Protein backbone atom coordinates (compact mmCIF):
# COMPACT_ATOMS: atom_id res chain seq x y z
CA UNK A 1 0.00 0.00 0.00
CA UNK A 2 2.77 2.42 0.96
CA UNK A 3 4.74 1.47 -2.13
CA UNK A 4 1.75 1.77 -4.48
CA UNK A 5 0.70 5.18 -3.17
CA UNK A 6 4.29 6.44 -3.39
CA UNK A 7 4.44 5.24 -7.01
CA UNK A 8 1.18 7.02 -7.92
CA UNK A 9 2.21 10.22 -6.12
CA UNK A 10 5.57 10.03 -7.93
CA UNK A 11 3.72 9.84 -11.26
CA UNK A 12 1.66 12.96 -10.38
CA UNK A 13 4.84 14.78 -9.30
CA UNK A 14 6.76 13.76 -12.44
CA UNK A 15 3.89 14.75 -14.72
CA UNK A 16 3.64 18.12 -12.99
CA UNK A 17 7.37 18.74 -13.38
CA UNK A 18 7.37 17.70 -17.04
CA UNK A 19 4.27 19.71 -18.04
CA UNK A 20 5.40 22.79 -16.12
CA UNK A 21 8.73 23.07 -17.95
CA UNK A 22 10.89 22.46 -14.85
CA UNK A 23 12.48 19.43 -16.57
CA UNK A 24 13.61 21.60 -19.50
CA UNK A 25 17.00 23.26 -18.78
CA UNK A 26 16.50 25.82 -21.58
CA UNK A 27 13.26 27.02 -19.97
CA UNK A 28 14.74 27.11 -16.47
CA UNK A 29 17.78 29.13 -17.61
CA UNK A 30 15.54 31.54 -19.53
CA UNK A 31 13.50 32.19 -16.38
CA UNK A 32 16.66 33.60 -14.78
CA UNK A 33 17.87 35.41 -17.90
CA UNK A 34 16.19 38.78 -17.27
CA UNK A 35 18.78 40.53 -19.43
CA UNK A 36 18.27 38.16 -22.37
CA UNK A 37 15.66 35.63 -23.54
CA UNK A 38 13.45 35.95 -20.43
CA UNK A 39 10.61 33.42 -20.07
CA UNK A 40 8.54 34.09 -16.91
CA UNK A 41 6.74 30.70 -17.05
CA UNK A 42 8.49 29.24 -14.00
CA UNK A 43 6.96 31.91 -11.76
CA UNK A 44 3.64 30.21 -12.52
CA UNK A 45 5.09 26.79 -11.57
CA UNK A 46 6.46 28.03 -8.26
CA UNK A 47 3.33 30.07 -7.52
CA UNK A 48 0.93 27.24 -8.38
CA UNK A 49 2.91 24.62 -6.44
CA UNK A 50 3.46 26.83 -3.40
CA UNK A 51 -0.12 28.10 -3.02
CA UNK A 52 -1.58 24.61 -3.58
CA UNK A 53 0.81 23.02 -1.07
CA UNK A 54 0.30 25.75 1.55
CA UNK A 55 -3.50 25.33 1.43
CA UNK A 56 -3.29 21.52 1.34
CA UNK A 57 -0.77 21.26 4.20
CA UNK A 58 -2.99 23.50 6.35
CA UNK A 59 -5.90 21.15 5.69
CA UNK A 60 -3.83 17.98 6.35
CA UNK A 61 -2.26 19.26 9.59
CA UNK A 62 -5.58 20.78 10.69
CA UNK A 63 -7.61 17.60 10.27
CA UNK A 64 -5.21 14.75 11.04
CA UNK A 65 -2.98 13.83 13.98
CA UNK A 66 -0.97 11.34 11.91
CA UNK A 67 -0.64 10.48 8.21
CA UNK A 68 -2.85 7.77 6.72
CA UNK A 69 -0.07 5.21 6.11
CA UNK A 70 2.57 6.10 8.71
CA UNK A 71 2.74 6.53 12.48
CA UNK A 72 3.71 10.19 12.53
CA UNK A 73 4.53 13.20 10.36
CA UNK A 74 8.28 13.32 9.65
CA UNK A 75 8.98 17.03 9.40
CA UNK A 76 12.47 18.56 9.38
CA UNK A 77 13.38 19.43 12.98
CA UNK A 78 16.54 21.49 12.38
CA UNK A 79 15.67 25.15 12.88
CA UNK A 80 19.17 26.59 12.74
CA UNK A 81 20.06 29.01 9.97
CA UNK A 82 23.76 28.17 9.82
CA UNK A 83 26.58 28.65 7.35
CA UNK A 84 26.11 25.11 6.00
CA UNK A 85 22.53 25.96 4.92
CA UNK A 86 23.54 29.26 3.33
CA UNK A 87 26.73 28.02 1.63
CA UNK A 88 25.00 24.84 0.42
CA UNK A 89 22.03 26.76 -0.98
CA UNK A 90 24.34 29.29 -2.65
CA UNK A 91 26.32 26.45 -4.28
CA UNK A 92 23.11 24.73 -5.39
CA UNK A 93 22.07 27.97 -7.10
CA UNK A 94 25.42 28.23 -8.89
CA UNK A 95 25.08 24.65 -10.17
CA UNK A 96 21.43 25.21 -11.13
CA UNK A 97 22.45 28.37 -12.99
CA UNK A 98 25.27 26.58 -14.84
CA UNK A 99 23.17 23.58 -15.94
CA UNK A 100 19.46 24.50 -15.77
CA UNK A 101 18.95 21.19 -13.94
CA UNK A 102 17.81 20.82 -10.31
CA UNK A 103 17.19 17.40 -8.67
CA UNK A 104 13.40 17.76 -8.91
CA UNK A 105 13.62 18.64 -12.60
CA UNK A 106 16.36 16.20 -13.60
CA UNK A 107 14.83 13.02 -12.17
CA UNK A 108 11.59 13.22 -14.23
CA UNK A 109 13.74 14.32 -17.21
CA UNK A 110 15.43 10.88 -17.08
CA UNK A 111 12.13 9.53 -18.46
CA UNK A 112 12.58 11.62 -21.60
CA UNK A 113 15.72 9.59 -22.33
CA UNK A 114 18.31 12.25 -23.24
CA UNK A 115 22.02 11.57 -22.65
CA UNK A 116 22.62 15.03 -21.18
CA UNK A 117 20.26 14.19 -18.28
CA UNK A 118 22.27 11.05 -17.47
CA UNK A 119 25.52 13.02 -17.55
CA UNK A 120 24.10 15.60 -15.13
CA UNK A 121 22.59 12.92 -12.85
CA UNK A 122 25.88 10.97 -12.68
CA UNK A 123 27.80 14.12 -11.72
CA UNK A 124 25.14 15.16 -9.17
CA UNK A 125 25.04 11.73 -7.50
CA UNK A 126 28.86 11.79 -7.28
CA UNK A 127 28.62 15.22 -5.61
CA UNK A 128 25.98 13.98 -3.15
CA UNK A 129 27.93 10.80 -2.30
CA UNK A 130 31.27 12.54 -1.73
CA UNK A 131 29.75 15.36 0.34
CA UNK A 132 27.78 12.92 2.49
CA UNK A 133 30.88 10.80 3.11
CA UNK A 134 32.84 13.88 4.25
CA UNK A 135 29.98 15.11 6.51
CA UNK A 136 29.60 11.65 8.09
CA UNK A 137 33.36 11.25 8.62
CA UNK A 138 33.50 14.66 10.32
CA UNK A 139 30.52 13.82 12.55
CA UNK A 140 32.30 10.61 13.64
CA UNK A 141 35.49 12.53 14.41
CA UNK A 142 33.58 15.06 16.53
CA UNK A 143 31.86 12.27 18.51
CA UNK A 144 35.13 10.40 19.08
Amino acid sequence: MRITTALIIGIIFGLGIALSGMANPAKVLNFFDFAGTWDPSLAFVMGGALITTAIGYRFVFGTRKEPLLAGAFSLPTNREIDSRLVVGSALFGVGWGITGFCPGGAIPAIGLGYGSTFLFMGAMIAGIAVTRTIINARARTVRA
Partner: protein
Amino acid sequence: MATEFTPFLSLAGGVLIGIAAILLMATHGRVAGMTGILAGVIPPVSADWGWRAAFLIGAIAAPAIYTAIGGSIAFAVPVSAAALAIGGVIVGVGVTLGSGCTSGHGVCGMARLSPRSIVATCVFMATTAITVFATRHIAGGI
Protein backbone atom coordinates in the same frame (compact mmCIF):
# COMPACT_ATOMS: atom_id res chain seq x y z
CA MET B 1 17.68 30.38 -27.34
CA ALA B 2 14.15 31.61 -26.64
CA THR B 3 11.47 29.35 -25.12
CA GLU B 4 7.70 29.72 -25.44
CA PHE B 5 5.86 31.49 -22.56
CA THR B 6 3.47 28.84 -21.16
CA PRO B 7 1.61 30.40 -18.20
CA PHE B 8 -1.37 28.03 -18.14
CA LEU B 9 0.59 24.80 -18.70
CA SER B 10 3.19 25.87 -16.12
CA LEU B 11 0.47 26.79 -13.60
CA ALA B 12 -1.25 23.41 -14.18
CA GLY B 13 2.10 21.63 -13.72
CA GLY B 14 2.73 23.59 -10.55
CA VAL B 15 -0.69 22.64 -9.15
CA LEU B 16 0.07 18.95 -9.90
CA ILE B 17 3.40 19.27 -8.05
CA GLY B 18 1.47 20.79 -5.13
CA ILE B 19 -1.12 17.99 -5.18
CA ALA B 20 1.69 15.41 -5.09
CA ALA B 21 3.28 17.21 -2.13
CA ILE B 22 -0.06 17.27 -0.24
CA LEU B 23 -0.73 13.58 -0.95
CA LEU B 24 2.76 12.52 0.18
CA MET B 25 2.29 14.43 3.44
CA ALA B 26 -1.25 13.09 3.97
CA THR B 27 -0.29 9.46 3.34
CA HIS B 28 3.39 9.08 4.29
CA GLY B 29 3.87 12.19 6.44
CA ARG B 30 6.84 13.22 4.33
CA VAL B 31 7.93 16.37 2.53
CA ALA B 32 8.19 15.92 -1.25
CA GLY B 33 11.82 17.07 -1.43
CA MET B 34 13.61 15.40 -4.31
CA THR B 35 17.04 15.79 -2.70
CA GLY B 36 15.99 13.99 0.48
CA ILE B 37 14.06 11.28 -1.33
CA LEU B 38 16.95 10.62 -3.76
CA ALA B 39 19.59 10.67 -1.01
CA GLY B 40 17.79 7.76 0.68
CA VAL B 41 18.37 5.43 -2.28
CA ILE B 42 22.05 6.33 -2.82
CA PRO B 43 24.37 3.99 -0.85
CA PRO B 44 24.34 3.77 2.11
CA VAL B 45 20.59 3.41 1.45
CA SER B 46 18.12 4.33 4.20
CA ALA B 47 15.95 1.65 5.84
CA ASP B 48 12.77 3.06 4.23
CA TRP B 49 14.16 2.99 0.68
CA GLY B 50 11.11 1.18 -0.71
CA TRP B 51 8.64 4.08 -0.92
CA ARG B 52 11.47 6.39 -1.99
CA ALA B 53 12.37 4.14 -4.92
CA ALA B 54 8.68 3.80 -5.86
CA PHE B 55 8.24 7.61 -5.83
CA LEU B 56 11.34 8.08 -8.01
CA ILE B 57 10.26 5.36 -10.46
CA GLY B 58 6.84 7.03 -10.74
CA ALA B 59 8.44 10.45 -11.31
CA ILE B 60 10.68 9.04 -14.07
CA ALA B 61 7.88 6.97 -15.63
CA ALA B 62 5.40 9.88 -15.90
CA PRO B 63 7.09 11.83 -18.73
CA ALA B 64 7.98 8.55 -20.46
CA ILE B 65 4.32 7.43 -20.43
CA TYR B 66 3.10 10.90 -21.42
CA THR B 67 5.37 11.04 -24.49
CA ALA B 68 4.66 7.38 -25.36
CA ILE B 69 0.92 8.13 -25.64
CA GLY B 70 1.58 11.06 -27.98
CA GLY B 71 2.21 13.99 -25.66
CA SER B 72 5.15 16.27 -26.36
CA ILE B 73 7.45 17.81 -23.77
CA ALA B 74 9.93 20.50 -24.84
CA PHE B 75 13.52 19.76 -23.83
CA ALA B 76 16.78 21.48 -24.76
CA VAL B 77 20.14 21.77 -23.05
CA PRO B 78 21.85 25.01 -24.10
CA VAL B 79 25.14 24.33 -22.26
CA SER B 80 28.20 22.13 -22.93
CA ALA B 81 28.82 18.62 -21.59
CA ALA B 82 31.67 19.98 -19.44
CA ALA B 83 29.26 22.53 -17.90
CA LEU B 84 26.76 19.73 -17.14
CA ALA B 85 29.44 17.62 -15.42
CA ILE B 86 30.90 20.46 -13.35
CA GLY B 87 27.50 22.00 -12.59
CA GLY B 88 26.12 18.57 -11.68
CA VAL B 89 28.80 18.03 -9.04
CA ILE B 90 28.19 21.54 -7.65
CA VAL B 91 24.42 20.85 -7.44
CA GLY B 92 25.12 17.57 -5.61
CA VAL B 93 27.44 19.24 -3.09
CA GLY B 94 25.07 22.21 -2.64
CA VAL B 95 21.85 20.28 -2.06
CA THR B 96 23.58 17.95 0.41
CA LEU B 97 25.10 20.80 2.46
CA GLY B 98 21.93 22.91 2.13
CA SER B 99 19.62 19.96 2.96
CA GLY B 100 17.32 20.54 0.01
CA CYS B 101 16.51 22.01 -3.36
CA THR B 102 13.65 23.68 -5.23
CA SER B 103 11.06 21.05 -4.33
CA GLY B 104 12.02 20.59 -0.68
CA HIS B 105 12.87 24.15 0.37
CA GLY B 106 11.15 26.09 -2.43
CA VAL B 107 7.78 24.33 -2.31
CA CYS B 108 7.32 22.18 0.82
CA GLY B 109 9.44 24.24 3.22
CA MET B 110 8.09 27.61 2.04
CA ALA B 111 4.53 26.22 2.28
CA ARG B 112 5.23 25.46 5.98
CA LEU B 113 6.73 28.97 6.38
CA SER B 114 9.98 27.35 7.55
CA PRO B 115 12.54 30.15 8.12
CA ARG B 116 15.36 27.80 7.02
CA SER B 117 13.59 27.10 3.74
CA ILE B 118 12.76 30.76 3.11
CA VAL B 119 16.44 31.68 3.60
CA ALA B 120 17.62 28.74 1.45
CA THR B 121 15.20 29.60 -1.37
CA CYS B 122 16.11 33.30 -1.42
CA VAL B 123 19.82 32.41 -1.45
CA PHE B 124 19.66 29.88 -4.28
CA MET B 125 17.30 31.97 -6.43
CA ALA B 126 19.77 34.85 -6.12
CA THR B 127 22.90 32.82 -6.90
CA THR B 128 21.14 31.12 -9.83
CA ALA B 129 20.22 34.49 -11.36
CA ILE B 130 23.76 35.82 -10.82
CA THR B 131 25.26 32.66 -12.35
CA VAL B 132 23.00 32.84 -15.42
CA PHE B 133 23.89 36.51 -15.91
CA ALA B 134 27.61 35.77 -15.51
CA THR B 135 27.69 32.75 -17.82
CA ARG B 136 25.49 34.24 -20.54
CA HIS B 137 26.25 37.95 -20.53
CA ILE B 138 29.79 38.16 -19.14
CA ALA B 139 31.34 34.85 -20.28
CA GLY B 140 29.16 34.72 -23.41
CA GLY B 141 27.97 31.13 -22.93
CA ILE B 142 29.49 27.97 -21.44
